[in-house]
């Protein structure tokens, strides 16, 4: 069977070469544009509004009275509270309660003046962290199951996974106390807030910082290990290196699962320290793997249209990347719905509060429905056909769309915490900060891909990838 697939790779271009300055300049250009646009937005925004939330109103929301917060919460007592059909009724409810001045749940942070950007920054960091985590997962699974087909794509994942260095740098501003306080209510809980005080042993600045450092230590160690050995194999061709990478993998996959789950709890779920979801880590993981494969598809298509990896990566591989994108849109929906379904059915106030905040105003209700259709139904139907996955143009369209809605998904996880979901917080700054990081990320990815072959050319299983054929 294999004998029918002799692929001559000798004429294939597998170095980034002249594409490196191109990618570097494009990334830097995007980043500089993003920085200037953000600065301009900050300067033209009147000091009283926009940036700081909504001035006195914001202060009012964060000024909670711990004791009566639940008693005063009209949603918690409403049996139909979680019914999505009642979303519009809810909005009315919420607005009425808000104008009455008593709708304060109190356990979400309200950023002080000038700290609104931290939220946009968090989304940016988590977005690119999710892609990088996805690439690490790709490498680990490849070795865990001794995959053949993905050998010709693995170097691209290895290069991308080195971006943990960049993300560790980007994390630093978030760890500063004033920025942590802007994000997380557990940094400065109200007196008598028992639900936070019992978690104080886990949710405090020291423990949080140590955990983040530990996650990055694991991620950087694993990504460096796999990348170094793989590059070394390019020179020596020693098959023992493959074995060495494989042996570590069962531990790596456990470490990965634990760190990803807890990182998502820390960075995203603890935005509302009263709320919890045991499936949250998997929800975040689904987004990681999804966004990574979409990113990989675009990267491969870009490289191929510039004459790189034209022989070792075939439409068969594109189809499989497309399958993974398709599969993980479904997986994302499955996990997202599992969380929603149980909370909707149980209708327990401490569980529904998270969704109620996302149904309080029509804008967030519409955003939620947009995710159902834009993040699941549309890509599901679009990516269903084999022909869509095998063609560069259509796969690129699908992958780009997925990368956009993945941002929308993270926005939906983070932003309704602002103003307790009572006011739609979108600002152009949310986009410009994201674009800045995107530019830096593109340049950094190219940095880690340059200098080595884009193909693990002496991997003993490369021939399997070259002979790979979808049945």
């Amino acid at each position, binding site marked *: 069977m294999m004998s029918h*697939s002799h692929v001559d790779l000798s004429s294939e271009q597998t170095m980034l070469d002249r594409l490196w300055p191109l990618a570097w300049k494009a990334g830097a250009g995007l980043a500089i544009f993003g920085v200037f646009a953000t600065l301009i937005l900050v300067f033209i925004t009147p000091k009283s509004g926009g940036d700081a939330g909504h001035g006195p109103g914001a202060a009012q929301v964060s000024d909670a009275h711990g004791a009566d917060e639940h008693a005063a919460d009209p949603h918690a007592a409403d049996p139909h509270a979680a019914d999505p059909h009642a979303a519009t009724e809810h909005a009315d409810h919420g607005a009425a309660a808000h104008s009455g001045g008593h709708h304060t749940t109190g356990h979400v942070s309200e950023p002080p003046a000038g700290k609104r950007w931290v939220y946009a920054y968090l989304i940016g960091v988590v977005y690119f962290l999710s892609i990088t985590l996805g690439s690490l997962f790709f490498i680990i699974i490849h070795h865990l199951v001794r995959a053949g087909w993905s050998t010709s794509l693995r170097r691209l994942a290895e290069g991308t996974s080195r971006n943990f260095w960049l993300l560790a740098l980007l994390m630093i501003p978030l760890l500063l106390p004033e920025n942590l306080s802007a994000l997380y209510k557990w940094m400065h809980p109200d007196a008598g807030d028992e639900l936070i005080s019992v978690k104080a042993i886990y949710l405090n600045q020291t423990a949080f910082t140590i955990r983040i450092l530990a996650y990055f230590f694991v991620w950087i160690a694993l990504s460096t290990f796999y990348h170094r050995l793989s590059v070394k194999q390019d020179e020596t061709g020693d098959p023992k290196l493959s074995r060495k990478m494989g042996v570590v993998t069962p531990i790596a996959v456990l470490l990965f699962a634990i760190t990803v789950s807890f990182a998502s709890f820390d960075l995203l779920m603890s935005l509302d320290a009263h709320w919890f979801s045991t499936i949250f880590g998997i929800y975040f993981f689904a987004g990681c793997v999804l966004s990574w494969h979409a990113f990989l598809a675009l990267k491969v298509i870009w490289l191929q249209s510039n004459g790189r990896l034209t022989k070792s990566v075939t439409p068969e591989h594109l189809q499989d990347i497309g399958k993974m994108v398709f599969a993980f849109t479904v997986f994302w929906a499955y996990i997202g*719905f599992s969380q929603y379904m149980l909370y909707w059915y149980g209708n327990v106030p401490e569980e529904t509060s998270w969704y109620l905040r996302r149904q309080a105003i029509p804008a967030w209700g519409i955003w939620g429905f947009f995710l159902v259709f834009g993040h699941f139904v549309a890509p599901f139907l679009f990516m269903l056909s084999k022909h869509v996955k095998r063609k560069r143009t259509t796969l690129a369209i699908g992958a780009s769309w997925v990368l956009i809605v993945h941002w929308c998904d993270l926005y939906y996880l983070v932003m309704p915490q602002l103003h307790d979901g009572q006011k739609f917080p979108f600002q152009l700054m949310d986009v410009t900060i994201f674009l800045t990081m995107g530019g830096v990320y593109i340049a950094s990815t190219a940095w880690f891909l340059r200098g080595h072959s884009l193909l693990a050319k002496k991997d003993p299983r490369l021939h399997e990838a070259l002979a790979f054929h979808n*049945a």
Partner: protein
Amino acid sequence: MAQPKGRPVLVLGEFESADSLMVAAEQVRDAGFTHWDCYTPYPIHGLDEKMGVKATALPWFVLGGGLTGCFVGFLMQWFMNAFDYPFMISGKPTWSVPANIPVSFELTILFSAFGAFFGMLAMNGLPRFYRPHFRSERFRRATNDRYFIGIEARDRSFDPAKNQDLLSSLGASHVEVVEE
């Protein structure tokens, strides 16, 4: 091989290797045959292309099955819970989308599988208990270590003598005509 008794219905060519079968299949395809097939002990990647097999319509059966299952799931739950025997459970609406999704999802998968399984059987004309190929002693090796091309009588270019010559010239190690 028994003496010819009836109308010839099949010309069988036996090949020793998958490679020689692949080469021959390409030639048979280019010669314009339409009712013919290859028989191999295991799936051979790329043979479909060499044979010029058109893309299967099976995915449409699966899609149709899936959509039907989804619709049936919602309809069934609406009929049971909201129409035939409405019953208030923990303050939930008698019919609502979130509660209906798990069952509809499972039925979507079940009906998709039905579409794939029964669609495959129907398109292959299965189950079928007899084919003229079974008359050939040598054909038994198609499940072991030999590769066959069979040209059927319903093909417009069916001509036992000419077809046998063709297969021999394409490298068949043995050719035979199977009669009714």
